[in-house]
């Protein structure tokens, strides 16, 4: 059975009172190296004979990826923000049964008419929208940080650390990733890890939802409007400064001009975030999380290199990130450590 036939069989079984269901378009969306992302157009007849059409997104587990993450946790973070001030695509179904599409997956409503690629913000024609888009980006991040966590669906599937354990938990995890996946010794990453352990940050003012990969490229936008925050596969509870620092990382300064995501100076982003969230940014803590971000990113690139080298994945993106980003990330880490 072809993948398209399998998708049609799944939706025919899953959608209520659906007859004569057809998949009219199915294509893979680029990016998203942690899961395969498929766009699906479905047409069917209801029991009354009325024709229905809808677009869906299917996020299927890959054979191997840059990030080893739990799809249930990701799905629950989408559920946590459905119908809230933080825009997300509506999550619909989580399927762990591999008989449908060979691997587990989940389904979301598709948001149409938006851009997601970071390249578009660099287009000179987009320049008038950059400041407005940046404001919305950091207002939404502030809303994520300010959201009370106790009643969120994600609190059922993800651990909530004590404030003073946030930094250590993340650092332990990503050091473990580097231990497991490095193909050769990483003297710069190891120096970064030692610095991080010698200089721990203060506890956060509050434990918050941390998206884990918050940056230009991981939301759907149209002009200055953000319609959906996506790619929650590294979401967890922790210090909200982690997201802020991650969004500033040089790897996402696409134009290499110091502008985070190509759209905003970090100081301006901090001001928007502080005003909206009511939280303060301790410069020493932000520096710690910025340095940590470089180590975490290196853990991601090393994971991709390992998966490709060991033959568990053939995705050319993994080879590309190995060649292009591992050495660049070492240089960014040297900058964060003030060694350049």
């Amino acid at each position, binding site marked *: 059975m072809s993948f398209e036939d399998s998708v049609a069989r799944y939706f025919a079984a899953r959608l209520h009172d659906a007859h004569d269901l057809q998949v009219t378009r199915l294509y893979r969306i680029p990016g998203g190296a942690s899961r395969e992302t498929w766009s699906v157009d479905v047409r069917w007849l209801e029991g009354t004979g009325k024709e229905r059409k809808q677009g869906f997104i299917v996020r299927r587990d890959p054979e191997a990826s840059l990030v080893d993450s739990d799809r249930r946790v990701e799905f629950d973070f989408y559920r946590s923000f459905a119908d809230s001030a933080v825009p997300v695509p509506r999550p619909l179904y989580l399927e762990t049964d591999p008989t449908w599409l060979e691997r587990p997956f989940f389904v979301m409503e598709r948001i149409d008419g938006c851009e997601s690629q970071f390249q578009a913000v660099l287009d000179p024609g987009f320049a008038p929208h950059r400041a407005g888009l940046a404001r919305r980006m950091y207002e939404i991040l502030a809303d994520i940080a300010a959201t009370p966590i106790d009643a969120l669906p994600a609190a059922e599937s993800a651990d909530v650390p004590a404030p003073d354990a946030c930094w250590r938990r993340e650092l332990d995890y990503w050091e473990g990733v580097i231990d497991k996946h490095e193909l*050769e010794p*990483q003297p710069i990453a190891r120096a970064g890890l030692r610095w991080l352990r010698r200089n721990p940050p203060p506890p956060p003012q509050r434990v918050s939802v941390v998206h884990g990969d918050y940056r230009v490229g991981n939301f759907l936008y149209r002009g200055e409007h953000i319609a959906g925050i996506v790619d929650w596969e590294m979401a967890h509870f922790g210090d909200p400064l982690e997201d802020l620092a991650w969004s500033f990382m040089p790897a996402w300064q696409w134009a290499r001009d110091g502008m985070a995501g190509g759209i905003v100076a970090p100081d301006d982003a901090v001001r928007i975030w502080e005003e909206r969230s009511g939280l303060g940014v301790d410069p020493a803590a932000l520096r710690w999380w910025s340095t940590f971000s470089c180590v975490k990113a290196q853990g991601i690139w090393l994971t991709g290199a390992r998966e490709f080298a060991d033959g568990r994945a053939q995705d050319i993106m993994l080879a590309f990130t190995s060649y292009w980003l591992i050495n660049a990330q070492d240089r960014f880490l040297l900058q964060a450590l003030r060694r350049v």
Partner: protein
Amino acid sequence: MVPSVPLVLNGLARTMLMDLLPQTAHAYSGQTLQLSGALAMMCAQEFERAAARLVEENAALVALFGDATAAIDDAALREELHAAVAAPPTGLLVSALHERNRVLRGLLVRLHAHVETVDSPAARALDARIWAELLESTRRRQLDLALA
């Protein structure tokens, strides 16, 4: 004589990026072509320089280790440094140079961690030299994505 490996890889990159990519309407296929073309360009650069950069870096690390022993009070580590300095040269196969580099960079990690725990002028000087070598190592590995 046949066309060199960098010439062939850059030709592949040019074909993918300038001939095939503009004809591709599908976003996923387009991205894959773009990444493949860029990867071919980087592989061309790495093929050309790999042996030179590994020989240079391995020699720099051996020289650093040779000068480091005076600042090291850990007998076992000092012995490892002596052994690394005294090791016979490898052949010039990239795989052999790379294996030697892997051993030397692993020893550099241990040396750096040790030096950071020692408070002496010699240790601080060695620490500064290690940081300089780490910075230089990123320069040796730098690649660019300009189509040759």
